[in-house]
């Protein structure tokens, strides 16, 4: 690290969301003319750190200094004015406006009080040229551009704001290899111009190529800062893991060792650029985990299996027979017997304003009714059953589901799907944002369901859950299965290393 005074410093910054500590006493020192990489696994505090720096969230405590003077950013505009500009992942472009409109959005050039379109055009062309996007027409609407070009526009937009600190949050995740090369040339030039670059990426080889300094985050704390190239990949992984295991997991049971075909089998499933050639099997009684960093295609895979996506290629086999699943309705039919516990219970899982009882029986209504008339007694009986099974704590069946705690809401989502007695259960990060006690109950339940012959595909961003619950874990990277871990191989070290797509652990590595 050079001796020059730091451009930006963050000391003792903490942020809590409810009971969850997202950042705790975070420290960061950024110098001009250097690329500073931020590393850490899911939920380590990287995105909160960026949001604090970019003025999106206010920290609970701590101080930030820019060139030695204290600063605070009440909103993104304030951060921009101070020269801190963040490139979010495909979040900040306005789809219906043109490329040029987007590039100057926060501060359009003006003449006689009105926007000067010629100056705007000039600024946009300059910025696009600096960002390596000379081929993008400034008048093209952003919504018509492919993802990789949009990312270039994002960078051009950031440059047009004359940043002193440029934050790139997974800025290359949507780019092709050729585009990444272009972007890196741009970044190196900006570094030479004296900008400070904060680079968040899960691609270790990119970090190795471009970073000067690295800071590792774990559990919301900055645990180490070192000069790039002074630590091996293994040492880096070592610093990223080390989370305490606070949950007790039920004992794993092996799937029945019979000759029956797997309940769910997927062969060479692809969907555009998001899913690439995925093959997997889930047997009765087995819990198969989906690992990897957040947003690598796990959610898309579950949605594809559940019949939500169009234009899939590849085969889905149920009990060894090829099936087409055209919609969620088809997926839950007796023919397939599939259930998906969605990620966002508030929008995809529950009708928040409706009663607990009504929510519980929604998915199973066709089974509980005759000729379109709901069998009230039958409904009541099945509801009582699942409420007892999952120990849902509610003041009654008629209270709106919105009045329950987060953990109990999640139980309602799960219970609702158990009422259709599914044989294949897909779970999309079901324990996000719920309390430890409920988590334990969900783990128990998963095992119980597996024990009674269900095939379970379980995506979680919490690695300890994958380790504690799964018979096998498929690590997804960039829409493809990167590695399969089985039994004792499922360790945090192996999960982190394969999630980052680096080959650590020379022993008993590739399955």
């Amino acid at each position, binding site marked *: 690290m050079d001796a020059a005074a730091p451009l930006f410093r963050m000391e003792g910054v903490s942020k809590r969301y409810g009971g969850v500590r997202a950042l705790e006493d975070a420290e960061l020192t950024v110098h001009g003319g250097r690329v500073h990489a931020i590393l850490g696994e899911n939920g380590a505090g990287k995105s909160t750190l960026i949001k604090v720096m970019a003025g999106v969230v206010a920290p609970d405590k701590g101080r930030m200094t820019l060139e030695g003077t204290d600063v605070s950013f009440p909103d993104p505009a304030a951060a921009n004015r101070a020269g801190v500009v963040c490139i979010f992942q495909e979040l900040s472009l306005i789809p219906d*406006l043109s490329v040029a409109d987007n590039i100057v959005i926060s501060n359009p050039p003006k003449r006689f009080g009105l926007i000067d*379109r010629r100056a705007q055009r000039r600024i946009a062309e300059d910025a696009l040229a600096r960002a390596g996007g000379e081929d993008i027409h400034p008048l*093209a609407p952003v919504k018509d551009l492919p993802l990789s070009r949009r990312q270039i526009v994002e960078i051009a937009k950031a440059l047009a704001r004359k940043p002193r600190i440029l934050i790139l949050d997974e800025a290359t995740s949507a780019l092709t290899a050729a585009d990444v090369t272009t972007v890196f040339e741009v970044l190196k030039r900006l570094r030479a111009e004296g900008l400070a670059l904060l680079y968040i990426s899960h691609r270790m080889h990119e970090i190795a190529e471009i970073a000067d300094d690295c800071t590792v985050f774990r559990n919301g704390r900055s645990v180490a800062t070192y000069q790039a190239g002074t630590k091996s990949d293994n040492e880096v992984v070592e610093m990223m893991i080390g989370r305490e295991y606070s949950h007790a997991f039920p004992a794993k049971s092996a799937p029945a060792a019979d000759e029956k075909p797997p309940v769910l089998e997927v062969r060479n499933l692809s969907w555009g650029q998001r899913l690439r050639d995925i093959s997997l099997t889930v047997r009765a009684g087995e819990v198969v985990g989906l690992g990897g960093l957040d947003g690598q295609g796990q959610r898309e895979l579950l949605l594809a299996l559940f019949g939500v*996506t169009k234009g899939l290629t590849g085969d889905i086999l149920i009990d060894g027979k090829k099936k087409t699943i055209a919609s969620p309705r088809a997926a839950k039919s007796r023919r397939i017997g599939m259930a998906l516990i969605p990620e966002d219970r508030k929008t995809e899982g529950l009708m928040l304003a409706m009663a607990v009882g009504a929510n519980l029986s929604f998915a199973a209504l066709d089974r509980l009714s005759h000729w379109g008339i709901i069998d009230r007694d039958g409904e009541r009986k099945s509801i009582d059953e699942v409420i007892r099974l999952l120990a849902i704590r509610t003041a009654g069946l008629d209270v709106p589901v919105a009045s329950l705690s987060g953990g109990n809401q999640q139980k309602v989502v799960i219970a609702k799907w158990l009422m259709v007695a599914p044989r294949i259960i897909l779970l999309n990060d079901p324990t996000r944002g719920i309390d430890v006690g409920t988590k334990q109950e969900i783990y128990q339940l998963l095992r119980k369901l597996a024990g009674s012959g269900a095939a379970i595909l379980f995506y979680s961003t919490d690695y300890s859950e994958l380790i504690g619950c799964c018979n096998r874990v498929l690590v997804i990277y960039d829409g493809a299965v990167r590695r399969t871990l089985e039994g004792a191989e499922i360790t945090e070290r192996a999960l982190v290393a394969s999630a980052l797509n680096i080959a650590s652990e020379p022993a008993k590595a590739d399955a």
Partner: protein
Amino acid sequence: MRDWRYTLAAQRGTLIALGLFMGLFALYVAKHPAGFTANVVQTAANKGAILAFVAMAQTFVVLTAGIDLSAGMTFTFTNCLGSYIVAGSTPTALLGCLGVLVAGSVCGMLNGLIVIYGRLQPIVTTVATGSIYYGLALWLRPQPGNSDNFNSDIADLMTGKTFGVVPSALVVLLAVVLVVWVPFRRSTMGRAVYATGSSEVAAYMSGVPTQQAKFWAYALSGLLASVGGLYLSFITYSGEANFANGGAYTLYSIAAVVLGGVSLFGGVGSAIGAIFGALAFRTIGDLMFVFELDPLFQPLFQGVVLLLAVCVGAARLFRIRNRLDLFA
């Protein structure tokens, strides 16, 4: 070099509305017993202009991805107010005109403040405030009427023919476009309105003043609705608190913006398109007359045309690959 293609694509909705209007209007004058004469055009322009103003009002709010169900009632209220205060000598009457416009803007600002700070949905807010504005109108004019010294000189000037040929309604419409719409479209505030309607999260993250943008969109909406109300006073010399008429203008203004290529999802379209949408919508009604069809079929016929236009706009849904995007 290919600039014109992008410009053309961006104006597609407006151009389609223009084409639709021209086609319908050509049919209308061709069938009209009097043909393409100044009087025929003037009558059509006067009727069309009123809806065009209310449609412009609707456009501002729809661009923010909201909807203004009070537009027709603001229009009715300002019409009633105009029938009182556009009176006396010409200077006093002009001051009265200004008063009407200020009153309309205040109605719009109130909508904006409730939507922004009350965090209520635009649809609920404007149903409620629309009822209030209608209540005010009814209080002003329990029966239709005008003030004894209503200034009909200004009214005639605004609704007659400029230089003896051009309908004044079109001149006024053009003036409003030049004074209100063009500067809006080229101001930072205008761009903020488009950005907010297109993606509020992205706009906020880009440091766009989204709340101010909404406020001014609603304020301009109120202003334009009062231009319509004022113009109705000019045509009729009077004010009438007609509930059915106010409601019809609200709904027709929504139909007009949709025909004019303004997206109800926000962020796309222009008031110019909405004007042609309004004129086209009016012409549909007039066509019934020249083709000697039973006027009772007018709503049915207008509905069918509107539905067809909306279907064309929904064609994008065929390209969606993730069904969850259908609900986004």
